[in-house]
């Protein structure tokens, strides 16, 4: 087994810890995990840096004092033995975060997931009434769940305001959003079909604020519970800081 120098492993741990701190500080961690993970990611980054820097400092002290007994030397050899080459792979997340900073999941994940639907049947089929007012803001998952399961028809004839990104799939136009429960690896897409042509010009992944009205009965088992919205107005907006619903 090829050994990796202790110092190399320590530097990599500092870099990974630094990468975790960077994404929590600048808010891009929201592309990868849910907001409540923030303190954990932060603490993990700090612990990695403290462990690695402490080890580097200890090695330097031991080296300077020049009193590395045979006993210590043995300990370090154990470290070498343990340190298989795999630790070098830690450079991949470091490079990915610092150089590429992968974007939040978008249209590609939605078309890839195809027929997967996150709308779980709800037992009590009555929902709290929507707040009064014109163009009520509502989350895509809430909107879709209501359109499928709500026996009180709280969406009927109500103009709602939906936020999501554009997905073109099989010639149809959708407004979509991904729901995550822990991290982006468990993302499940939510989408509504847009009817009315007002959003036709937007490219994939363009974020929109859409006001519109549900077409009653448009979400069926046959279309994977995808409701259709008759679009009233469309506004292009910048991608939000927290791109997912939770």
């Amino acid at each position, binding site marked *: 087994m090829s050994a990796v120098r202790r110092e190399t492993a320590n530097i990599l741990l500092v870099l990974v810890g630094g990468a975790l701190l960077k994404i929590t500080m600048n808010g891009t961690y929201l592309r990868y995990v849910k907001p409540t993970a923030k303190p954990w990611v932060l603490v993990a980054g700090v612990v990695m840096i403290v462990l690695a820097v402490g080890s580097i400092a200890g090695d330097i002290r031991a080296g300077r004092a020049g009193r590395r007994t045979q006993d210590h030397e043995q300990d370090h050899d154990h470290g070498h033995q343990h340190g298989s080459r795999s630790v070098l792979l830690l450079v991949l997340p470091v490079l990915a975060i610092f150089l590429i900073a992968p974007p939040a999941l978008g249209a590609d994940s939605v078309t890839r997931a195809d027929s997967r639907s996150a709308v779980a049947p709800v037992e009590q089929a009555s929902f709290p009434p929507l707040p009064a007012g014109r163009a009520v803001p509502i989350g895509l998952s809430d909107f879709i769940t209501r359109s499928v399961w709500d026996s009180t028809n709280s969406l009927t004839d109500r103009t709602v305001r939906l936020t999501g990104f554009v997905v073109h799939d099989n010639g149809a136009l959708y407004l979509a959003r991904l729901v995550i429960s822990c991290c*982006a690896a468990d993302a499940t897409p939510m989408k509504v079909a847009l009817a009315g042509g007002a959003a036709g010009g937007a490219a994939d992944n363009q974020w929109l604020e859409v006001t519109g009205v549900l077409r009653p009965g448009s979400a069926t088992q046959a279309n994977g519970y995808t409701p259709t919205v008759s679009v009233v107005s469309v506004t292009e907006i910048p991608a939000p800081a927290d791109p997912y619903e939770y």
Partner: protein
Amino acid sequence: MTTVDELATEPAAPRRRRVTSLEVLCAVLVLAVAVQSWLGRVLDVPALRTGATVFVAICVQAMPFLVLGVLISGAIAAFVPARLLRRVLPRNTTLAVGVAGLAGAALPGCECASVPVARRLMQQGVPPAVAVTFLLAAPAINPVVLVATAVAFPTAPRMVLARLLASLLTAVVMGLVWARSGRPEWIAERALRALPAVRGGSRWAVFTETARGDLADAGGFLVIGGLTAATLTVLVPASWYGAVDRNGLLAIPVLAVLAVVLAVCSEADAFVAASLSALPLLPRLVFLVVGPAVDVKLIALHVGTFGRAFAVRFVPAAFVIAVGCAVLVGLCVFGGYR
């Protein structure tokens, strides 16, 4: 036996390799910065972008749990003497396996945290069968995971009970099988090597050094697991989901395999299972029981921590036992295939 040879030749090796790994790292970093914009263009393919995001997400999400695991592992090495563990655990292996299964409920993390802890337990003299039971039980039956399952399945509270029973059964059966036919030589010597005896006043040093070493060890394998899971997430055709909708019993093997390849964290897998709402409860239970026991991320961690000989035997056995226990418990708790 080869390990002894390696040990013998080891002292000479570090001098020669001293510069190499640091140089490699520096070269990689400089090169990456130099080709950054080119890299950005190459990766500007939707599938690659999705894969990169999932990869980073798995790493970011799993690191805190890995850190928790190595801190506990370090604490066990430094502050829990082997003889205390021996005194606490029943001498009878069967009893000890049961205790370890229930003890799994006390580690509120996911599967990444339990691997370093199980390894440290083995090293402190806990029989491998008992440590293996803990390894399987901890990520599956702790309160955080069970609450998440209850939240994800509001209309089927029996799912929580079924998951608890099936995962506990999996862990205990695997532990008993390992106690009967497991061999010590299947576990890599490096996983079991005892740390140098704690000298007075240096417990803190043992704690930090063990935690750091475990982190460096497991971190790289977590990356392998994350890469594999991200690749498979992009490659597994969506038509799989459609196929299982139409073929009743096929759903069980397909979801068992999906649990392995998707490598969703045990704290989130209930939500993924809930999203497969067209399927009966039983195959989704299989998904929830197999995932925390065996997945690509864990296989990488197992190979790295316990060695290939361990993983080659443990992974298939745990997979079969997990599927079997899930089906059995599911049939009882749900009252049939539903």
